[in-house]
């Protein structure tokens, strides 16, 4: 692909349409069958250090498909300073594969140099807003492009929080020029866990700053919901998607599936269901309680980030 300069403003980002997360299980399917998928989202950390098969496959896929880089370790909300070794690797990968944009999460992953490898919730305060905006400015200056931040699934609300998450995201975009990755499933999960109205959340975001949406499956554990990315999208999330689609004038859509990953055709079919919900706006305020899952899930499953070497053996 030709090298292009990244747009300076998120409103100038292109809309690539309907995309899928790039997972190693599907590498061969994609390379051999060249499916008609609009774009792929990669997990940046899977490829930043790779000198083997993952990077080789990514180069080949980036020659044919549009690619977006999605990270899990920027830790923009940590009280720690930015990790410039990490940012340098992110920048180098972006220079190599020319992504449409780079995204990460409004969260922190650790402090004092530790990494929990979880997307931990922010105390939403004036002070943390100032801190996050300062770090976003630094990261955007370093990378030379606006970044996009996703609302994470949250399982608690801090007593110290004084700002609603939708307002925090709006203020962040106003202050830094960053964009929003609206994870519709995460809104639903967080609203269930923290007693807020999911539709109200989506209605009160700055829709013109929403570059992309995420869809995913979750697990209902009875009195809380875990964002497991291991299942089909729940009906309640499709309903919220319908609202978000309308309000964002059809932002780019990406289906995540990170655990119990199905065959590529099943994964792709689930993404294309989004087209059935684009113009429909069913009743969205009174969700039924989900059927309880048989087992407790793990939030933000990251096991796909570690290569299963045995799968890559010649036998």
């Amino acid at each position, binding site marked *: 692909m030709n090298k292009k300069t990244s747009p300076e403003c998120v409103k100038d980002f292109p809309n690539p349409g309907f995309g899928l997360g790039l997972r190693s299980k599907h590498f061969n399917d994609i390379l051999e069958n060249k499916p008609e998928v609009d774009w792929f989202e990669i997990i940046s*950390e899977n490829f*930043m*250090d790779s*000198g*083997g*098969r993952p*990077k*080789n496959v990514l180069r080949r896929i980036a020659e044919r498909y549009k690619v977006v880089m999605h990270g899990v*370790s920027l830790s923009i*909300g*940590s*009280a720690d300073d930015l*990790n410039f070794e*990490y940012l340098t690797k992110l920048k180098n990968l972006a220079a190599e594969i020319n992504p449409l944009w780079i995204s990460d999460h409004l969260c*922190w992953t*650790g*402090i*004092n*140099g*530790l*990494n*929990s*490898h*979880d997307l*931990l919730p922010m*105390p939403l*305060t004036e*002070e*943390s807003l*100032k*801190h996050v905006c300062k770090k976003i400015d630094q990261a955007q200056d370093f990378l030379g492009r606006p970044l996009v931040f996703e609302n994470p699934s949250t*399982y*608690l*609300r*801090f*007593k*110290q929080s004084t700002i609603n998450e939708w307002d925090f995201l709006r203020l962040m975009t106003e202050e830094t020029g960053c964009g929003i990755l609206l994870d519709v499933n995460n809104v639903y999960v967080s609203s269930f*866990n*923290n*007693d807020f109205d999911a539709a109200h959340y989506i209605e009160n975001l700055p829709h013109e700053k929403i570059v992309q949406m995420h869809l995913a499956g979750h697990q209902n554990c009875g*009195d*809380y919901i*875990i964002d497991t990315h291991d299942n089909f999208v729940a009906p309640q999330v499709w309903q919220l998607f319908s609202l978000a689609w309308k309000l964002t004038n059809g932002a780019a859509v990406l289906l995540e599936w990170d655990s119990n990953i199905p065959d590529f055709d099943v994964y792709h079919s689930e993404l294309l269901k989004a087209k059935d919900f684009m113009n429909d706006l069913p009743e969205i305020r009174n969700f039924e309680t989900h059927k309880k899952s048989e087992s*407790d899930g*793990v*939030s*933000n*499953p*990251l*096991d796909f*980030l*570690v*290569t*299963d*070497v*045995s799968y*890559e*053996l*010649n*036998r």
Partner: protein
Amino acid sequence: MPTDTQKNLAQIQNWMQSVLVSPEFDSANTADFVNDSSRLSAERHLRIYRQSYIARLRDCMKNQFSALAFALGEDLFQMFADQYLEAYPSGSYTLNDLGKNFAAHLQETRPDAGSAEKESWIDFMIELANFEYSLSIIFDEHADEKIVLADDSTTDESLKLIPVFHLFRHTYPVCRYYLDVVNKNEPELPFEETSFCTVSRYNFRLNLLEINPAQYFFLEKLRDGESVAEAKDQTVYKFGFDAKDFENVWQMWRKNFIAADFLRVESVGAD
């Protein structure tokens, strides 16, 4: 000087992180930081993160050390993994580094550390842990794989090892055990037995091959930059082989090494 902002944020994050990573759940200050919701107490909200933290990292460890997990059994592996994660919490942005110090940790905390008589099974576990972590590194190491593989017509003078090629010597049959686990043969724990193997990567796929001591010696020489002729001479000398007989052995080795895809054609002027 940190501002009040950073201090407050840091206080909250320090508190939450300490709750997540500590082996025992301390709920004492939870109500100072976390709200109850209509369905859950503050403590239960916090427990969701705590449970996910350890479950996620255990899964990653099990993925990175699948043969070791089989060898130890689920409970023992989990105990060692939990102890390791407490002693060496991750400081890396990538989970691929998670098991970097696991073998060293097993050595540091070996159950027989205080006794004069050493338990041999622990040595096997440490070798296996080292081997599995090495495989994950070799799988993704940087190398130019634009090479021409050797074939029957390649002269000995043009033979070189491929760029991603590693030799291992173990005091247990670690490679065989690993392959048996991967192939779902459910192997028994092995007895002590010096073993040798190669791990090579061609076309981004790993190849594991058990070899004998003489082959290990010969390939070590090639790896260190010596020619096939020099490596052959040294092997004959080291193992007291008859030079004429060894020529027949070499022809078999050569055929097998070419079939295993770890010999390439030396490009003129490139090496």
